[in-house]
């Protein structure tokens, strides 16, 4: 049941963030600090999310090697090709092969 409330909370907050500007700053100037936070926040949050995804990395059994390889493949491919879909698909596939067949 807690899960349902969690989903509702996420729906509520996402919608709130999308509607708020249209309610709040309809006819008023946007405070400079809000504008600044808006410009800077995404960079820091994306870094946090990458770390968040890697928080369960197992440093005992596989020494985090599958994660490291898949990260390098994803990043390398992305810097080379700049195509998000190719980078994501290849990186994920490499990781799946590693954890299913190599580091079992």
């Amino acid at each position, binding site marked *: 049941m807690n899960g349902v409330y969690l989903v509702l909370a996420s729906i509520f907050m996402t919608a709130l*963030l999308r509607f708020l500007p249209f309610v709040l700053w309809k006819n008023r100037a946007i405070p400079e600090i809000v504008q600044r936070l808006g410009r800077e926040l995404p960079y820091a949050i994306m870094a946090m999310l990458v770390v968040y995804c890697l928080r369960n990395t197992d440093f005992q059994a596989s020494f985090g090697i599958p*994660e490291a390889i898949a990260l390098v493949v994803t990043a390398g491919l992305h810097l080379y090709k700049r195509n998000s879909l190719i980078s994501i698909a290849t990186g994920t596939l490499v990781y799946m092969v590693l954890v299913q067949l190599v580091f079992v």
Partner: protein
Amino acid sequence: MKRKVIQLAFQKTIPVMVGYLVLGFGYGIYSASKSYGLGWVFPISLFVYAGTMQYVLVDLLVSHASVLEGLLTTFMVNARHLFYGISMLEPYQVLKKEKPYVIFALTDETYSLVVQEVPEGISKRWYYFFISLFDHCYWVLGSCLGALVGSANIIPSKGIEFSMTALFLTVFLDQWKEKQDHFSALFGLVASIGSILLFGKDHFLIPTMILIALALYIRGKRERI
């Protein structure tokens, strides 16, 4: 008249269609692999409709996070939507009864399309509406298909969760390239790793988000003086 708008809107959304079908599919499989199948994926894709957050939400559900944690995490992950809204205040003034829906459906990818110049002689109102609607459909469709395939256990899905890591990493790299000053990105990295070491991997999101907000606020204040 309307047909022309629909056609043009559809053409414009083709790149997003590919992206949403693939990412949505990945999300659906991932969610189903954590036993949150179609019954969760369909309403979540329909009503939350925020890709990054939906991936994170799966983890929050699995770890039985609190509602407060859900609200705060959604706030931080989706705060950027505030700024999409701000920059669409003017253009979206042409909208009438469809306005609430178009505001609700303003995702990163939709923003990247509607922020562009609307072609001459095209009804802005319906152009914005159909772009938003098409993108929304792609996302719901992709994720539901993923959930069905995931639940059917056709693909050995172990490791599929890396698609989320890879998604965030590519966005992180794109952001890194478009900016000279890397303070925010680096601070985010340091604050998260520091918080994991201090608070442990199950309770580090909230302290990290507080640290990030504080640091950016202080730095913003300082630079203005």
